[in-house]
């Protein structure tokens, strides 16, 4: 069953289409990754799903019902973790979660239990009496999540929930996303971090200029680029390397150099490794290692959009 179905969704700000005729569906039980560079239209899409923005055109169905005609129903079944931390600094962690859960109709004992449960879930069980103003960035991010899950929504939407936090909190969050999913929530997850998306998402959509340009499991996405290969050559110093000469070799698509690494991306079917190495020897670059990289999402993204995920 599709938890979410989006058809021909468009959002215009003036003449500019932030989301452009987007169609996509999210099935029950998925962790759906939404991958896109800054300004690609991820948040705009999410905000329309969460009824925070009105669409210019198109339809959104949640659990088979149109969200515009069933706003309360849709809102009750969605939990949103906003991109910006949205909590009250003058209320304790516990009060924050309880207040927001209360808006979803939870009362009395259930409210108390679910509040405690949500805090426990994000690892703030021992901090429920503390004020968030004394929290680290990672703890605030976790509280931001707790506030969205206490009412046990069918669909949890997380808009870059791991921005600017320490690796420990990040791991905690990634694990809790998986756990939430196991407990039955469908999840939409946006991120700038390819590794995160690759680690937890069961399906990924790549968004660019308000459009979905590719959509599938990570294996499916990687197969898009099996016709290219990425060769990394370790050298003592990349200084003497003549980049233009490398680029002139047949099959080579692009060359990037870092201090001690030369990264060549090349057509897969052209056997040009020998010529590349010979060129480097000629440049007296002192080769130390040669490895062929497995195709990764970063490369997929680069190939599809022509830019890096992060600038």
């Amino acid at each position, binding site marked *: 069953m599709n938890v979410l179905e989006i058809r021909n969704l468009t959002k215009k700000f003036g003449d500019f289409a932030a989301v452009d005729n987007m169609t996509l569906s999210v099935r029950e039980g998925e962790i759906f990754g939404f991958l896109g560079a800054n300004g690609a239209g991820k948040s705009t899409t999410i905000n329309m799903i969460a009824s925070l923005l009105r669409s210019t055109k198109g339809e959104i169905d949640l659990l088979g019902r149109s969200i515009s005609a069933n706003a309360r129903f849709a809102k009750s079944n969605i939990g949103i973790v906003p991109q910006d931390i949205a909590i009250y600094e003058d209320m304790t962690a516990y009060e924050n979660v309880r207040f927001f859960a209360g*808006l979803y109709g939870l009362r009395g004992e259930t409210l108390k239990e679910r509040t405690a449960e949500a805090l426990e879930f994000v690892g703030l069980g021992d901090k429920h009496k503390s004020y968030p103003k004394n929290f680290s960035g990672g703890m605030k991010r976790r509280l931001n999540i707790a506030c969205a899950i206490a009412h046990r929504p069918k669909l949890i939407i997380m808009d870059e929930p791991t921005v600017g936090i320490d690796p420990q909190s990040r791991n905690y969050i990634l694990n809790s996303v998986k756990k939430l999913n196991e407990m039955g929530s469908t999840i939409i997850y946006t991120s700038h971090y390819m590794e995160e998306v690759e680690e937890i998402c069961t399906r990924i959509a790549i968004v660019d200029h308000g459009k979905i340009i590719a959509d599938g499991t990570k294996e499916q996405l990687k197969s898009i680029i099996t016709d290219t290969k990425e060769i990394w050559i370790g050298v003592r110093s990349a200084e003497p390397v003549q980049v233009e000469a490398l680029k002139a070799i047949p099959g080579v698509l692009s060359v990037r150099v870092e201090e001690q690494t030369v990264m060549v991306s090349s057509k897969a079917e052209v056997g040009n490794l020998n010529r590349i190495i010979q060129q480097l020897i000629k440049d007296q670059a002192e080769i130390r290692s040669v490895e062929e990289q497995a195709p990764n999402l970063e490369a997929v993204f680069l190939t599809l959009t022509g830019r890096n995920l992060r600038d």
Partner: protein
Amino acid sequence: MNVLNIAWKEIKTGLRDTKTFLLMLAFPIVLILILGTALSGAFSTSVKVGDMKLLYRSEVTSPQLAEYWNGFLKAAESQGIRAVAAEAGADGRKAVRDNRYTAYAELGDNGIRFYGSSKVSIETNILQGMLTVFADRYNLVAAAVKENPAAVPGIVAAWTDAGDYVREASVDPKRQPGSIDYYAMAMTTMFALYAAFSATYLIQGEHARKTAIRLSAAPVSRAEVFAGKIVGCTFYNFLILLAVVLFSKLAFDADWGSRFGIVLAVLATEVLLAISLGLALGYLLKGEGSRSVLMIFLQIASFAGGAYFPFGETEGVIHLLLNLNPLMWANTALMKVIYENDALAALPAIGLNAAVAAAFLILAVIAMRKREAL
């Protein structure tokens, strides 16, 4: 239920911020004290009804008349008049002339005579007024005792209520506020209106903290959010005003009259008006603009509404303009409630407050419908 949830959150976080709470309490109190003492000269008529002293000599033999007189004394005492029986041979008139007593009364079986101080003051007026009324009746009773003793109890029974004398008797029935009394009232109503200032943050604050996102995403209507905010903020600010009123009454002995409930109703609706005004302005104008506009309005309203000095009688266009000011109608109403015991005078103010509050809310709701989210 959501409305109460949101309201309760406002109240709780408000009260928790004790520093702000105490500051909001201290500000009006300090102003009452400063203005009340600095400008006490401007309120020369300030006299407490409680300062009145009555000297009397009774040579009554008729037990009925004696009982009637005692009844009057009790009634007078309940109004704060101290009655002292003159010692034998003392010159009562001289005592009044020397200003030791407000009035002197001599009574016998044939009637009553009294002497008031020649100085015209509210206290002599009130006391003489009471005595005049009493004297008329006393003389009637005295005559009745002689002619028709059986009728006396009936006549007396009709006149035993303390209020009878005061209301009818005072030559100048209007009590006047002292400077502390006046500023206790004027500062309280002024700060009630200033609550509008904090209300501009009610929705803006949610946007600044990004929590507006959560409120909009939750299955709660925006009208519920508005209502909750207004109820909570009104209650919180009303608590502060209540504390100011009680503090001024207990610490400065400010006169809030005897119709306490009515006074509080005027204040509560005035806060409601202020909060609705602030919320609507903050919602419509966004950012600092809303507060600049409000600040100008509040300062003009305070000045023209008599917050710093009371206005005398006005007429014509000026009168009309001045009365468009919520502070003016609140102050006018409270003056009448407190000093003329006229509870009905509060009704126009309460009605106007509620109507204006409703108007601003409707304005905000219309604006709200055009927005995508909160």
